[in-house]
Every structure is written in C-alpha cells, then in structure tokens.
C-alpha cells in the first residue's frame, strides 16, 4: 500500500510528510513530525486533548485524517509560544496553577487561545461552553476558567 504524500503548513513552517490513509492528523503530528505536545486522550472527539487549529478553526486532530491536511494551515501547541516567550495563557496557567497532571493542558491552551482570538471579552459562561469539549480529570475546571478569564482581562488591558 503506497503512502500518501501531503504538503502542508505546521506552525507557519512548510511541511511535508508521508502517511497511511488510515492515519489521523494526531498520529501524523505525534509519530511522523515529532510534535508530541498534542495529546491523545479518548481518540473519539470527546476529550479535546488533541485540539489543534486547521485554517484557524479549532478541531480535534483525532477526528481528521492526516491526508486531509493537504494545503491546510495547522497550528499546534508547539506554535503557541514565541520562541522562549510564553503566550499569556501559558504564563497565566503556570501562575495560577491551572493544571495538575498536564495531559489536558495543551488542548485547553489551544482551545482557549482560539476563543480569545474570536472573543477577547468572554463571559465565564462563554468560556465554560467553549471549553466544554476539553475534559480535565484533575483540577475541577475552576482554576482553568479563572486563568482564561484573567488572561483575557490582561490582554484587553495590554491592547
């Protein structure tokens, strides 16, 4: 079975890879491209640990085939910090201890960044609904929600 050649953009870099037809984008990111920040949780689109953006749209990378990435622009958690400078959400998650084991954190950060790009001033309810597809089994969510709200407020003040 011949593998599929895919040309795409990952975190702003032109990228090529070969994948089997069955491979998900998550498989490709982790196993072909070595971008292991994106996590596999459920593999069925329920937990959000594998969240990435495709052409700016938040998706579960476990629910997309690698072959579908042809010509698309993929952004993962590895594209979030600018060099050594953490994104304000990353910094705030550390300051407010909005994580414990950390498995859900990359997906939540990618999802929260996507929210704040669309809505810089979300209500708590909007944050909770937006992140409803990101499951965390450690923190109970309150610290996560508060960190996103605080970051949004900081970023509004800074802009």
């Amino acid at each position: 079975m011949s593998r599929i050649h895919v040309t795409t953009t990952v975190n702003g870099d032109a990228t090529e890879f070969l994948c089997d037809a069955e491979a998900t984008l998550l498989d490709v990111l982790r196993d072909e491209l070595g971008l292991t920040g994106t996590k596999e949780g459920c593999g069925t689109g329920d937990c959000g640990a594998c969240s990435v953006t495709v052409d700016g749209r938040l998706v579960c990378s476990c629910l997309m085939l690698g072959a579908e990435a042809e010509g698309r622009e993929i952004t993962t958690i590895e594209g979030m910090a600018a060099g050594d400078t953490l994104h304000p959400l990353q910094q705030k998650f550390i300051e407010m201890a909005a994580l414990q084991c950390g498995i859900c954190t990359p997906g939540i950060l990618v999802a929260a960044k996507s929210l704040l790009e669309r809505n810089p001033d979300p209500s708590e309810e909007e944050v909770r609904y937006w992140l409803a597809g990101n499951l965390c089994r450690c923190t109970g969510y309150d610290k996560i929600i508060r960190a996103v709200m605080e970051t949004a407020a900081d970023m509004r003040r800074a802009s």
Partner: protein
Amino acid sequence: MRFEAPRSVEEAVTALAGQTGAHVLAGGTDLLVKLRAEMIEPELIVDIKRIAGMRDVVAEDGGWRIGAAVSGAEMGEHAGLCADWPGVVEAVGLIGSTQVQGRATLAGNLCNASPAADSVPAMVAAGAVVRVVGPKGTRDVAVIDIPKAPGKTTLAAGEFIASVFLPARGARSGDAYLRFIPRTEMDIAVVGCGIALSLDAAGRVAAARVSLGAVGPKVMLVDAAAEAIQGRVLDEAALADLAAVCSAAATPIDDKRGTVDFRRHVSGVLARRAAVIAEARAKGEQA
C-alpha cells in the same frame, strides 16, 4: 484503505461507483469514530471537501443552499442563515463540542442516521430538501425520506448528499428546535422537537410543521400536531392540545437516557416551548 479527494462531483461519483466498501468523508466526526472502533473497514474514503461548492452557503430562490461540507461553526457565523432559520442553526450548534462544531455537518448528521440527531428534526420542520448525486444522476429528496432505520439511510449504493436546501422562510414565519438532555452540553438528545410555523395577519397559525426526534427509530413529522394548531392563536388551550398530540405521537423506548413515559411527557413539553419560540420569531419579537 485508499484515500481520494476528488475535485468534482463527477469524479467523486466515479470513484464511489467503482468501489464496494467506499465511504464518503465530509466532517468526519462520526466516520473517524467508526473507523477507529472498527465498526467500518472501508476500502476507500472519498473526501468531498475539495469539490467546488461543498463548503459554500449560497442564496437560492429566497432560501439557502448549504454545501454538504459546511460545518456547524460556519453555519453559526452566517448571518443570513441565522436570520432565516435560527432553529436549524441552533440545532446543528447543539452537536458536540466547539471542536466538533469545527467539522461536523448537516449532511453528515443526516447520513449518520441516528434517531437522536439534533439537526434532523429541525431540518424536517423547515421542509429541507437534500440534493443527492450518484451514478444514476441527481435527485432532490425531502430530509424526512432519508433516514430508514437507526444507522441506515435510503441512499442507494454510490449516492451521497451534495447539499441541503432550506427553502425561503416566508413572511410571518419562524422556526425553533429544542432538545432535552440531563446536562447542559455535550450530550445526546433524550427527546428533540423541531417546529416551523407561519402566522396569518391575525396571528393565527397559517401553516406548521412539527417534528420529533429520539422518540422512535427515525425522525417523525407529526402531521396531527400541525393540524392541532392550524388556524388557531397559540393560546394555552392550543398549546395544551399541541403537547397532548405530540406526547401521543411519540413512540419511544426505555433506555439508559430516559423511560417511555418520560420521553412521551417531554415530547409535549418541548413542543409547546418550541412553538412559543417559533411564534415569537414569526412575529419578529425574538431573534
């Protein structure tokens, strides 16, 4: 398994016609789950997203033609769709998480053929018609005629849905969809109810379409519910009659999400609430 991403409907039809065990991929939010669970083991996946028009929402005859690969998120961001068919947009918006909304489609929700699909009762109430393409050409089919049984559709081998058409909303018209779930998000409908209605100049119901989901093996169009409110102002008596008819029409089963009695009761409750929302929208009182 092979993967193809044809650029035209003709190429897609040819690819599907030449291959048993082929599956169509639009948003993939059901297909990839089935693939992983090995519920399906396709020889071929045909991704229709590269076909011209599949990702477009286009005005047509006063209504809207929605390409089969348009996502729920894209529908929710489309001002014209939100203004004309808010019930359909809200129904598709109830499916899954933000991430799922980024990919999930109306056509996929219909073809997955779950009795509890949220967008399907809303489409049935709206009188939506899908354009089916296949080896024998193109045909337009009412949404109500697509589901056959849980997980099964009436599409023939090699056919797929290219677009969903929502007709012109019409004057003094509005729609609504409500579902019951025991939590606030990320769940499957225990009961769903879609209503689209038009009012006459005096505020009486001129025409209505009432649908129920998750209370039978497939979505139901409840003609008796429409008849119960036809020609009437939606006062307490009319709403009570509507609720009674919907409860009687429901044919649910007992399962882990709800009992027969509960689902029958909720069918009526949701119908009366959805009717009130649709009426307010028809009067321009509510977006």
